[in-house]
């Protein structure tokens, strides 16, 4: 992803459901200065088809019509927007359309992944693709037949392996068919032939909803996805936002509507191998309604909000949704509460048969935003004990006691031991007690195409509010300093610090066993004549820290002089964004200003 001000790239993909489809891209400048930008259009194999140079006025918007799509035999391809500036300086949107038929679909855009992004395998569910004739309760014209589509583009620099798996319900049971993997090269775009995949799965005459799950092995966030269903007249386009199948806490499903001919369709899929029970909580002005949902292994369940309202069936608390209610919001959670971990993919779309419109809804994952441990500092007598508690606070405002679920550790078990937060004094001394719930989900948004995997990855540990990804290494204590042991004829300085891996907000990454490695590059300030550098690798302890000795030995010492080095770190081979300036002198060593 683009992280700092400088060259920015946003990649998109286009596809043509039928020959008359063309499209446009809008570029909006959010800054106070005019901004030049380039839009390039390419075919499925990244071969350039056209290029547009535009200058967007301050706070202005430029629309670029994609003329290349009009008379082009290609059915799928790529778009690339480049500009110089901050990551959010230009907002890019796009749409594919055929006004003659009433067809329209959104063009997905996303920043390419960092070159250092690790290869992962993640399943993306395109949930509730409509196939064939729909249930009459959905109120589509009787002859309406839907065909699903699925388009993907690799916006990374490494090949992506994509394995499609189709899931559907048959006789109340979940069925699946796994298809052959395909490889999508860097910047290649492909349109999956879902109809052929269905035929291979013996679903030639299938009518109903199916889930297309794409098992993607590639650097994370390097495949752009778009999917949905379109009817035979290209009037109804039901876009489905692919979502990563990931364990989470409760999820907010945003706005729903049944007003003015709208209805909101909710499709839930259980990716797990075991059955799960959920509570679908419908919020509306003046109350809420609880809908229990039981999903067998890999099972799919679809309902419309209008059904629930029309049923006028009281929930377990005796609540009803008044017939006069036509909108609200919703949340899905486990039966044990909002912080119960669940694994469910959900798609929510509000559609209007009369207007032939469909709008999908962004989903947010509820999760922890801060953590607090009770009684700090505390004292315990030898042989005595103190019970510590660890609580998290979620974005919803709720607090949860996670003492029992947390992993506890003592920095010196010879002084005090800890189990389930109960600290037992062993000997006189000071000790640091750590408690962390490694599976506590973080709060995070889930919009995009596909949206970022939700909940946000912790990077391990209970780092702190809003902390995303290890960011830097900083000394948190100096254990020893003095003259270094140097070869004869050399002298210098040595400083042993306790270094810690930290998030950008300064909180520690409290995870043991991370391998930290560094490289030191001496700058042009080198009065001490450093020609040899030594660096190493270090495992972190439960506090995300390790003892590290910085040293300098020079023939120029003890005369005054200075050599500066840029120290870059990796954690488990992944580079950290922040580098340290290390200033070596004959009688001092300063690390990043410390």
């Amino acid at each position: 992803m683009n992280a700092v001000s400088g060259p920015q790239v946003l990649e998109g993909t286009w596809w043509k459901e039928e020959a008359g489809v063309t499209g446009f891209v809008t570029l909006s400048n959010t800054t106070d200065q005019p901004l030049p930008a380039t839009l390039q259009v390419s075919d499925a194999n990244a071969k350039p088809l056209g290029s547009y140079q535009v200058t967007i006025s301050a706070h202005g918007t430029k629309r670029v019509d994609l003329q290349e799509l009009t008379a082009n035999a290609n059915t799928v391809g790529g778009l690339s927007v480049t500009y110089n500036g901050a990551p959010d300086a230009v907002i890019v949107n796009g749409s594919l359309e055929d006004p003659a038929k009433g067809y329209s679909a959104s063009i997905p855009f996303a920043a390419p992944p960092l070159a250092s992004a690790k290869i992962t395998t993640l399943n993306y569910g395109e949930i509730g693709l409509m196939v064939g004739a729909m249930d009459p309760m959905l109120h589509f014209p009787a002859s309406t037949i839907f065909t699903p589509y699925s388009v993907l583009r690799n916006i990374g620099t490494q090949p992506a392996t994509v394995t499609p798996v189709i899931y559907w319900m048959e006789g109340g049971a979940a069925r699946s068919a796994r298809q052959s993997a395909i490889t999508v090269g860097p910047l290649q775009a492909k349109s999956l032939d879902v109809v052929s995949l269905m035929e291979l799965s013996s679903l030639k005459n299938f009518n109903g909803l199916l889930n297309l799950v794409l098992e993607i092995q590639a650097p994370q966030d390097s495949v752009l996805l778009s999917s949905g269903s379109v009817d035979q007249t290209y009037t109804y386009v039901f876009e489905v936002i692919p979502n990563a199948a990931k364990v989470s806490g409760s999820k907010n499903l945003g706005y729903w509507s049944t007003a003015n001919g709208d209805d909101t369709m909710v499709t839930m899929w259980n990716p797990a191998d075991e059955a799960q029970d959920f509570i679908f909580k419908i919020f509306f002005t003046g109350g809420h309604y609880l809908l229990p949902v039981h999903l067998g292994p890999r099972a799919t369940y679809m309902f419309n909000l209008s059904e629930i309202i029309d049923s006028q069936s009281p929930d377990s608390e005796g609540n009803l949704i008044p017939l006069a209610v036509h909108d609200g919001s919703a949340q899905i959670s486990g039966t044990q509460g909002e912080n119960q971990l669940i694994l469910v993919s959900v798609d929510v779309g509000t559609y209007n048969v009369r207007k032939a419109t469909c709008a999908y809804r962004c989903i947010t994952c509820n999760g922890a935003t801060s953590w607090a441990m009770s009684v700090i500092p505390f004292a315990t007598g030898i042989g005595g004990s103190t019970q510590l508690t660890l609580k998290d606070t979620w974005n919803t405002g709720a607090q949860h006691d996670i003492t029992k679920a947390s992993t506890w550790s003592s920095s010196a078990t010879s002084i005090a031991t800890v189990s389930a937060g109960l600290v037992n004094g062993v000997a006189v001394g000071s000790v640091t007690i750590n408690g962390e719930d490694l599976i506590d989900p973080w709060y995070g948004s889930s919009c995009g195409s596909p949206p970022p995997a939700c909940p946000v990855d912790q990077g391990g540990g209970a780092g702190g509010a809003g902390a995303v990804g290890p960011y830097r290494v900083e000394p948190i204590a100096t254990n020893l300093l003095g003259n270094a042991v140097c070869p004869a004829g050399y002298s210098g300085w040595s400083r042993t610090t306790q270094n810690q891996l930290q998030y950008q907000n300064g909180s520690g990454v409290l995870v043991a066993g991370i391998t930290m490695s560094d490289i030191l590059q001496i700058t042009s300030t080198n009065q001490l004549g450093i020609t040899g550098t030594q660096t190493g690798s270090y495992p972190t302890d439960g506090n995300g820290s390790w003892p590290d000795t910085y040293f300098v030995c020079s023939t120029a010492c003890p005369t005054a002089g200075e050599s500066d080095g840029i120290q870059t770190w990796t954690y488990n081979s992944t580079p950290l964004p922040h580098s340290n300036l290390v200033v070596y002198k004959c009688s001092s060593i300063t690390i990043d200003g410390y």
Partner: protein
Amino acid sequence: MVTEMRNVKHLFRLSCILLTISAAQLASARCNSDLSTGVAEFNSIQISRIDALLRFGKQYNVCFGIEYVDMKLLTEPVDLHIRNSSVRDAIRSILGDERLLSIKLSNGIVEISGQNPRGEKKSVFDYVLPKFEARRAPLQEIVMALHMQLIVDLNPRVTGFAGNYSAGDLKDEVGPISEQNRSIRFLLDQLVAQSKGGAWIARIPWNFSGDLARIEQHPVWSVVEYNAPNAGYASLLNTIASELGTESSSPTKPGES
């Protein structure tokens, strides 16, 4: 009253046990040089043979100089269950019988090296330093000083060193040292033997005889302290495994061939 008396007895027993443990810890501060010492039991699950060897060394106070390493020894996880053996046989079992390795007691520690000859070439560990002196200091600091002394001896034009290294146990001090005409191997053996217990490990393949650029840019050995904080070995061993190259020239002073 009877109950109270029993409690007093328990306290006395507890004190005795604590004293016994303290004595054992003092004994473990030095390296056991008797390879016939009995080994009642040693188990390890899904760790590499070198990792297991270090854990065995820590458990039975055996210090090592591990000059032979290969990818398999460093990274292949194995299960080991050793009972009623001697230290020597246990070491053989841990290292496995896939390769011919020399296991011998030397300078107070157990040296593990390959049996296949290097020919006429000598290893960097055979390199003789004319002089190595250091005041008493933490083990890892002296180890770094030895590395710098080797580089200076090979390339006197080096004017300065800087960087950082794993601090290890700052209370594990060795020295002072004043040795003349000693091999790197001997000096490493001495440092480890003086420590609270540990091992030195080559960071180069057995057939590597060294070249100056490699030695100047990367450590060619590491010293593991059994009682150091963060004493998990897998991270270091994986790093060494990733570094293993194919260099095979002899350490030479600039200008020599």
